[in-house]
């Protein structure tokens, strides 16, 4: 019986300690998930990091992995942000060949996408673009006509829309860890 697979954005607050990344990624591997994208950075509380992880899976299996993640001692809280209620952004740097023949076309595309040129060399440009995944994908799609030499993407980071965050609601003893 085929079950609907969908994209989930899991956000996790984790204690900033060595080895946390491997604990989290090992758990995904063990439960049979391929991480599509992952981004890690500091959170609002000094000793906590925030991970944003995109996976494909059924609701039930993603919920299972979310609960397993929350069991890790170094993980404070995990929430599954549904696509529709999320502000998500990704950053990409692209090095593209830009000979005098195509340079102006590339600059034009760049400005249409409100991307910016951050480095110029004799026959290439480095372009920085920020946006949701779709925007970056379509930008890269257009650039493919011009010999892309290198792409670096950060992975998606996300916040839920509205005034509150599912990550910060906790009445239990763990609330202390969110604040400290």
């Amino acid at each position, binding site marked *: 019986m085929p079950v609907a697979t969908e994209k989930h954005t899991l956000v996790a607050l984790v204690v900033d300690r060595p*080895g946390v990344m491997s604990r989290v990624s*090992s758990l995904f591997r063990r439960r049979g998930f391929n991480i599509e994208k992952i981004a890690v950075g500091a959170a609002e509380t000094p000793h906590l990091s925030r991970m944003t992880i995109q996976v494909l899976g059924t609701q*039930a299996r993603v919920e299972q992995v979310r609960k397993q993640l*929350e*069991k*890790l*001692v170094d993980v404070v809280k995990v929430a599954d942000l549904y696509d529709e209620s999320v502000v998500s952004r990704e950053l990409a740097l692209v090095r593209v060949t830009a000979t005098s023949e195509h340079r102006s076309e590339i600059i034009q595309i760049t400005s249409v996408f409100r991307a910016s040129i951050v480095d110029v060399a004799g026959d290439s440009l480095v372009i920085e673009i920020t946006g949701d995944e779709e925007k970056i994908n379509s930008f890269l799609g257009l650039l493919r006509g011009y010999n892309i030499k290198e792409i670096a993407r950060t992975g998606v980071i996300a916040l839920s829309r509205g005034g509150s965050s599912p990550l910060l609601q906790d009445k*239990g003893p*763990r609330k*202390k860890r969110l604040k400290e």
Partner: protein
Amino acid sequence: MTTVRLKGAQILCECLRREGVEVVFGFPGGTVLPLYDVLPQYPELRHVLVRHEQGAAHAADGYARATGKVGVCLATSGPGATNLVTGIASAYLDTSPIVAITGQVARQFIGQDAFQEVDITGITLPITKNNYLVMESSRLAETVHEAFFVARTGRPGPVLLDIPRDVFVEETTYYPEQDYDFNALKHHPSGHPTQVKKAARAINESRRPVILAGRGVIVSGACQGMLSLAERAQIPVVNTLLGLGSIPQTHFLSLGMLGMHGSAHANKAVSHTDLIVALGMRFDDRATANLSGFAPEAQIVHIDIDPAEIGKNVPVDVPIVGDVGRVLEVLAPLVQPGDRRQWIQQIEQWRAEHPNIIPDGAELVPQYVVNQIWEATRGDTLVVTGVGQHQMWTAQNFQFHRPNGLISSGGLGAMGFELPAALGAKVGCPEDTVWCIGGDGGTQMTIQELGTIAQEDASVKIAIMNNGFLGMVRQWQELFYHRRYVGTQLGGPDFVMIAKAYGIQGERVTDRAQVRPAIERAMAHPGPYLIDFLVEPEENVYPMVPPGASLMDFVESPRVRQRSPASSLGVSNI
């Protein structure tokens, strides 16, 4: 606050003492030498020298299960640490709290592929609740206490502490009276009141309920609470393998074990029930058999302290996250006294139709041996088993009546568990009789622990069901691989001579008449004693739910099939 300057090794020992540790199962080596050197300063920490680190981990596990306390094992870096892995994994799957301490190469050598260096925190990532590499001696005390807290809190489990050699040696300030609060690490609330009410309503409305009790009931100390709920509402109780003993099996509401080798009436009850009240269990595939045919008519109430177990394998109608004992305290008063005579009579009829037959006749069958150990002890013993046929015969034929009466590697199914775990249980509970029931295969996997048992004079009574085969595998080859026995015949040793070589008394038993007297001699003997039972080589474990089949489709022993033709079933669906 008082402070003292101590070496890391001393701080570790101080912390172990504060945690109430009485015994450490260990094996020395280069990186833990500084720790061994200070052990004589702490005479209250008894060190039991095992013969192989796997034995240390299993012994700590056996100790933990028998006593309910945290078991501690100790190994050196590299091969010492990797040898612990099987034991840690077994403790992880069976929810047993152990703290494994490993030495690590000195900090400056970490990552250099130094002699006996291995990334044991990386290796044990998926089989520990948490693990720690202690890189600062100033953090050592707090980390040790956190390790014990994590091991015993919530759903218990193994924790590993990896300590570099130079951290043991370095002197630092120790605060003997410092208190630590790790409560923020707790993840698990007690059961939600609305859910508990829903569960009570489901029980009150059910005509054919069963309680499915796992090891969580024992871990949470909820056996009495479960029994009073079962009696009040007249709900029969089915056990998982590791749940055996949570209800006295002689109780009329006890149906014994379900699953692949569960009793026929337990499997039938689960297949016909309209409500499963699952307590501290995790719907393991050996218990549920094929999920598509599992309890087709049942609503499921699942109470477990681990939220990730709820809904993992089967969809649950009423999920309750919480400690089983505490949830039952709230739930029981909401449950109405019930009269479920019809349902219980139905189950009794199944029990009569599918009796557990111990074959009579002259042959020395293992079921008879287990039965005789039960009769001789009246169940007043801890039973530690290995993995395989003898484990199932023990589960089926021993009437467990005390929590933790059965200590067995259930989830991992680690052969070789029996001897070291029995040693650990005996060290933890010296006043209790401990029977180690093993096979001739598994016993040989850790047979060197006879040396530890002898050296510690741990009075373990060892029964080997010696059938000259890796019996369970042979049974599968017989039933599902056209009786082609490949790699399953054991040219066994003379176990009695091996025991004697270790200084342990023993005897060999070859016929029924000698069984009981040998058991009595073993129990009368003040020290460890080994009995090598030469049992029927091709006896099979029945009933059996063939792999891939549903609980209802169990195959019965040919002996029962002869009695009642209605229940005959082939294994054609393989």
